[in-house]
């Protein structure tokens, strides 16, 4: 039987403490907004850059430079051999073009490992070949694909929501409990008739309330500032967020279950969260890691949360389509919670 009055008070004081903690509010709410606007603007989709090329000074070179410039695709400049090499090394140009006497032949110098090098080679080559009279055998046409759901910001915001739920859950629960323990506040609470379950419930309920605010601000911000579209029902997105909040809250509880010192809790927390920041696809897709590591990466709770959020928000994938990641996420939560409750020490 729950003591509702006690539960209400326990949740109320958590909210109160938070509202008087400006740094926490900043990191939980303002920072993700700043980060997403910054990254959203830096990686906004724009017309592809021109290719930058250096043409080594020789007879006939100025004419080639003029032809390249006239194409509108290539920014070319006339340089000495040494200047040109320096420009290539420094990334000012992506390609060096040398006229190899005789039959109007050309030599391309570029670093094949640099994507811009290959791109510049293709573009310069095409301009020069067309100028020399090559015609396309098959007609082609470019269609621009940049609709909401496929842009970087659409990828980023669900990732930031996931990251926020992870750090909010782990810090919000783990750090709070460790601090209460060090201050002997847990011992003082357990010396009252307070039911331990009410206490744990209040911690988890507070996480859920914060989840609404955290997920809500980022989604609203994404929609207003970047015209992001939420394709799944809002309820589904919030439920996924709620599951994430509870799972990471439970992991925080587990980390703090036997804590004696705040520092050791902070250390353990970083060890757990760091790999997920890197591997779970917050800022770039986790699919880019080698195929052999994919099963491991997919088993991480943050990967499961991010994948589910992205699928729901950007593609409108319904519940059934998310069974696997949601089960992985819930598994982490249930196991962490069970072990945490078993290991928990109040004094």
């Amino acid at each position, binding site marked *: 039987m729950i003591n509702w009055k006690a539960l209400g008070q326990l949740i*109320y004081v958590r909210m109160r403490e938070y509202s*008087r903690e400006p740094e926490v509010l900043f990191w939980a709410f303002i920072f993700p907004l700043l980060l997403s606007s910054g990254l959203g603007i830096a990686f906004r989709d724009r017309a592809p850059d021109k290719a930058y090329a250096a043409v080594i000074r020789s007879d006939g070179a100025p004419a080639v430079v003029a032809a390249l410039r006239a194409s509108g695709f290539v920014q070319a400049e006339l340089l000495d051999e040494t200047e040109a090499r320096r420009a290539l090394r420094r990334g000012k140009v992506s390609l060096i073009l040398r006229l190899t006497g005789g039959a109007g032949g050309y030599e391309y110098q570029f670093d094949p490992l640099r994507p811009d090098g290959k791109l510049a080679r293709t573009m310069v080559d095409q301009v020069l070949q067309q100028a020399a009279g090559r015609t396309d055998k098959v007609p082609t046409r470019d269609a621009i694909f940049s609709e909401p759901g496929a842009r970087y910001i659409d990828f980023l915001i669900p990732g930031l929501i996931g990251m926020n739920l992870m750090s909010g859950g782990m810090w919000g629960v783990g750090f709070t409990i460790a601090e209460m323990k060090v201050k002997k506040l847990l011992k003082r609470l357990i*010396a*009252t*008739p*307070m039911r331990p379950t009410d206490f744990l419930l209040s911690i988890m309920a507070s996480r859920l309330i914060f989840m609404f605010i955290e997920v809500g601000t980022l989604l609203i911000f994404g929609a207003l500032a970047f015209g992001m579209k939420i394709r799944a029902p809002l309820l589904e997105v919030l439920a996924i967020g709620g599951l994430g909040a509870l799972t990471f809250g439970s992991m925080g509880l587990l980390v703090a279950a036997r804590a004696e010192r705040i520092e050791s809790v902070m250390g353990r927390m970083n060890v757990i969260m760091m790999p997920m920041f890197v591997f779970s696809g917050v800022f770039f897709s986790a699919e880019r890691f080698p195929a052999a590591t994919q099963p491991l990466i997919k088993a991480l709770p943050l990967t499961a949360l991010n994948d589910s959020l992205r699928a729901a928000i950007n593609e409108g994938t319904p519940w059934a389509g998310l069974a696997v990641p949601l089960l992985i996420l819930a598994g982490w939560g249930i196991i962490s919670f069970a072990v945490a409750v078993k290991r928990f020490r109040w*004094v």
Partner: protein
Amino acid sequence: MTIAIRCQDLRKRYDNKVDAVSGIDLEVGVSQCFGLLGPNGAGKTTTVEILEGLLEPTSGEVEVLGRRWREPGAHLRERLGITLQETRFSEKLTVRETLRLFKSFYRKSQDLTQVLDSVSLIDKATTLVAKLSGGQKQRLAVACALVGSPEILFLDEPTTGLDPQSRRQVWDIVRRFQTQGGTVLLTTHYMDEAERLCDQVAIVDHGKVIARGSPRALIHSLGGDHVVEFSVAANAAGELDQARMLAIPSAIQCRREGELHQLTVREAHVAIPALLELLRRDHYELSSLTTRHASLEDVFVNLTGRHLRDD
């Protein structure tokens, strides 16, 4: 006398090596104020926390209000108020918010304003805990212990580190609780606190009770109620002879601490003239002389040869 707290042959060993409590028996009557007096590390906190049901004893029996901690349906926590030796309440909550939280755990509880008033924190009700002084924090801790209308109040070093005025405020709260029929168990290493507040004290050292009784009876057991403290100038001829001092009429005991001689006497007005006469005859130059009532501190020093506190 109805017994509120009883323990028998209580033992606690930490980590299989430190014997913090080695066989303590206590009996505290209802509406008594009982003090556990002892130096640092004596085992006071360990003992109370076992009585409070926060620690498991290694062995021994504990009964609080006639019930055992493991007994189902005892609801003991509803009936006890506790302050720990060290609790730091959440700094980001106000006094009233903190107290309201504690109130919410109890089925039967006191009015918030009334409790705040009784610990003189009513004008600090909306102040954040972070902004309270040490004495105010301690009174908040006592308020949190009182808010559930307890039958027994456990206070672990309620006044350590407080200034004299704050200590007196805490004493007043404890006395008021006791006059309303409440039972108090407190620990302290201030002898004056024990003397003023407690009906009964047990002096604890190295996990054992080395003396017990009312403060008055314990002091009386020294044989003399007064202590004459004096020192003599260093240029005097040789050391003062202990045996000759004990020959002073009504002297019971003689002890020396550095330059200070302490003579426990039954009657100061008999002993002091004799002492002065002895010093004059042997050409000792007196550099200080004071008399005071014997205290529990003297009882402790007498029993152990050590002081309760290092300072």
